[in-house]
């Protein structure tokens, strides 16, 4: 028995990662994943045969989109998780963390639809066809959004290439 447990449980870490990258807040992201899993349990018999990953990402993505719409309507502010400020590891580790934080900040500035494509394809390893299914768009649109996302992110990265750490410090001092 428990096909569902066997097939879905290994995907949960990736679902959390995708949700967190989209909404950038641990509690909100885990709310979405919890909602996604509960729906998956309820609707397990409606899935297509085969790999359930695209199906799970579709549920999660739609929940995230609804969440975006709700918070946009309410003008609600979702707090962005800070990097672990209390973690004073070695300088090298700390610096690495700043670089990661920096690229995630830049990722967050991409339009939602471009960010979603980039995450599904480049981080979650969905095929272009599966990403198209998750986002309910033609595969050509996946490719053009992927291209725009990569170009834009690259401009951001290169734009701050000489002052990346400075940029991070500046961003942090605003909060």
């Amino acid at each position, binding site marked *: *028995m*428990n*096909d*569902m*447990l066997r*097939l*879905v*449980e290994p995907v*949960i*870490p*990736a679902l*959390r*990662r995708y949700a*967190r*990258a989209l909404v950038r807040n641990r509690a909100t992201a*885990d709310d979405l*994943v*919890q909602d996604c*899993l*509960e729906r998956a*349990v*309820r609707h*397990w*018999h409606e899935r297509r*045969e*085969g790999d359930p990953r695209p199906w799970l990402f579709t549920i999660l993505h739609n929940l995230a989109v609804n969440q975006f719409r709700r918070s946009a309507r309410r003008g609600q502010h979702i707090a962005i998780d800070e990097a672990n400020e209390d973690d004073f590891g070695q300088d090298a580790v700390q610096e690495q963390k700043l*670089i*990661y*934080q920096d*690229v*995630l900040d830049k*990722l967050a500035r991409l339009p939602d639809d471009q960010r979603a494509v*980039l*995450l599904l*394809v*480049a*981080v979650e390893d969905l*095929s*272009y066809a599966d990403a198209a299914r998750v986002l309910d768009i033609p595969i050509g649109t996946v*490719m053009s959004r*992927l*291209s725009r996302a*990569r170009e834009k*992110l*690259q401009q951001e*990265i*290169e734009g701050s290439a000489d002052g990346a750490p400075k940029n991070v410090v500046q961003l942090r001092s605003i909060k």
Partner: protein
Amino acid sequence: MTNRPITEDDLHAYVDGVLEPEREAEVAAYLEGHPDMARRVAAFSDQRDLLRQALAPIADEPLPSRLNLSGMIEKRQRRPSPVWWAVAAMLMLSIGGLGGWVMRGSLQTSSGGLAALAQEAAYSYSVYAPDRVRPVEMRASDSAQLVQWVSNRLKQPVKLPDLTASGYRLMGGRLIATSHGPAAMFMYDDDRGDRLVVLTRPMISDQSAPMAPHSGGDVSGFAWADGGMGYSLVGQAAAEALKPIANEVRRQARTI
């Protein structure tokens, strides 16, 4: 070498490592001759690596307890109370145990009858139920055609059991070859994805036989025969969970 021009899509697929080996070699050759494009592709690759590294720690975090999937599944199952189970277990021990022992003889001796049918159903379950791609040949959406098809082949009116009241949904079915002729197999699943198989065919011996439990490997089931048609229901659930479903199948089949 193909003569297809390199496209933007090829470059992204190259970055994502999803090109066929031959095409990948062509893109690599192209990039060697176009250093500007190669720099851009390399930058995209670095960007991809950086994103993956930056997000990897999230997937490594221990899962918070509210994302415990088995807990959610159990909650969904809404198990009957322990008292109910105790009563059921006592009933099974007193009735099922004795009945099972008595039936055992009849199942073992009648090789062409109920025992053979039970075996065919168990084989069908083990072959088709784990199939993720095409467990059934005709899906539930074509159930009318499915019933017509198997009724024609079995030369008997076959009724499709409706198990929604028991929590099982029809997935579809197919025709099965047995050494006693064609049989119809119907497959069902529940909200957890657990599958059941109902096998039915005309009986040569044991034209009418009371319901008897059977088990083998990790599947168990119940077989019976009514008015010349044999039935077997097989699943991985416990026998006490399958018994009422088998009763339901029998009840519905009798109303043809």
